[in-house]
């Protein structure tokens, strides 16, 4: 029962399902209780799931290039729903075109995300950050 719960899903109108399954499996094998919302998940669904399950973090994936539009406002909605300080992670192919990742990262940090990952970052990297953030190791 002491397992930490994390909510994961692919945000927006994005239907990329394969990476989502890999993240689910890897997090579960790393000792997390995973609430996987699957693909095409709205901001509200992330928040409702986190409230009901008392989640410790939300991990958002976006693969189709519209991540910036889809993710904007998630932090504010978390605050509104009583999830102040909820750790937010985001990764995937967040934007389209050849953009400097550092700039993209800065924009997502400004939106209130705690961790922003460049394309092709292995989920293991995120798990290390996640455990640090939650004080698990």
């Amino acid at each position, binding site marked *: *029962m002491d*397992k930490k*719960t994390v909510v994961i899903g692919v945000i927006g*109108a*994005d*239907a990329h399902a394969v990476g989502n399954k890999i993240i689910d499996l890897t997090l579960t094998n790393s000792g997390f*209780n995973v*609430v996987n919302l*699957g*693909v*095409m998940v709205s901001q509200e*669904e992330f928040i*409702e*799931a986190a*409230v*009901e*399950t*008392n989640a410790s973090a939300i991990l958002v994936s976006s693969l*189709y*290039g519209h991540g910036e539009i889809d993710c904007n406002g998630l932090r504010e909605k978390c605050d509104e729903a009583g999830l102040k300080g909820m750790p937010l992670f985001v990764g995937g192919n967040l934007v389209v075109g050849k953009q400097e990742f550092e700039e993209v990262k800065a924009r997502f940090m400004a939106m209130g995300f705690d961790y922003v990952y460049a394309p092709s970052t292995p989920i293991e990297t995120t798990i290390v950050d996640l455990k640090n953030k939650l004080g698990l190791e």
Partner: protein
Amino acid sequence: MKFLTVDVGSTYTKLTAIDAEQRVILGTAQSFTTIESDVMQGFENAWRLLTENRPDNPCADFKYDQMLVCSSAAGGLKMVALGLVPDLTAKAARTAASNAGAKVVKTYAYEISGGEQQEIFDINPDLVLLCGGTDGGNKEVIIANAKRLVAIDRAFTTIVAGNKSATDEIREIFREAGKDVVITENVMPQFNKLNIEPARDAIRQMFIARIIEAKGLNRIQAMTAQKIIPTPLAVLQACELLSRGTSKQKGRGDLLAVDVGGATTDVYSMASGAPTVDNTMMKGLPEPWSKRTVEGDLGMRYSLTHVFEQLPEYVCSDKEYIQRVQAWVELCSAHPDTLAAPDSEEERIEEFLGRSAVSLAVERHCGRIAEVYTPLGEMHTLEGKDLMNLPTVIGIGGVIRNSRHPEEILKGSLYDIMRSECTKPRNPKFYLDKKYIFASMGLLSMVDAELAFELLDKECVALG
């Protein structure tokens, strides 16, 4: 073996006499019951009518071996449900209570306020279902709501079906306050996993243990060894039986049943509701195969004004006609015993309002489909049940049975292009429960499922 089933209603007590050897319904009778008068009086009047000594009455010397009783007397089983997130545990709580045959007056989400405490005091429910949090999930809200519930000065029993990690504390809160509580399994133990049967069973147990006496049903209970169950639960059991069939007889498959009463409209669906359109993603809480919803604001007498107020603008552009409809609505609301004369305009207005009530109730019962354009092409999302290919719609009870054109009322259940997001049936066949036997057969199914199915299958006739 001869059976007598008794449906003690809020307005009528209905008897059905069944002969198991001849495998027929010998007769039915009903008599007026009022909330004030004793339940026994309604029963005795109906019994007299059933066994009346008139020529050709097959029930004139009817004697039964077993009596089975269901009840919706004194307003039925009145409940309120509490959950955490509206679309998650609050919805699961409502589904569980509705499926147990309760009239869920109101559903609350998050921590309730002082005003909402007062509202529950005013509703004065028979039972309260308290849910919230997945197992190991949020505890604060369900505990806070437990504290708020014990502070309400009413005698209801609370059934707790929420986060198991909070149950010890909750039991302690109720023990200290000296209030009745029953703790059962979580309605949503894991995220989006529905587990409503334990709560449903607990509600039925409490109905037997507490409500029967409170509703003045103990004298009728003393006449039978079988436990009295809520009428909507009996109807639900009949729907399940007709859909599934028995080990020896093939059921009718997926179906929808609608019961439009004077105060409420009940909708029952027996269907998985799997998507009928390609590339559809399921969203939201999964729904049980056997699902009941009850609309407290949709009825043909006591709540007719609400039906009228919710008529969509596009149904009729003739202002004068709408005024005549309004006049009829006002008349029926003031005098609930008003009946339309055969072949009058009032009769057609009545059918129009009935169809509108069915339309709204089925719309709320079924799912919602939406188109989403993605870089991978057009996709759909579906929340709730997709009933578009459902083959069977059955009208039971109330207005539909009394109407001379029941299919006109049942047409309200059809898919409507103006509300294309609602996944209502596109091309079903309509059936009618002519003798109003669903509740009776639901009762009978508990002792003789084969006979109950046979009679249901015979009496549920195709329309048009």
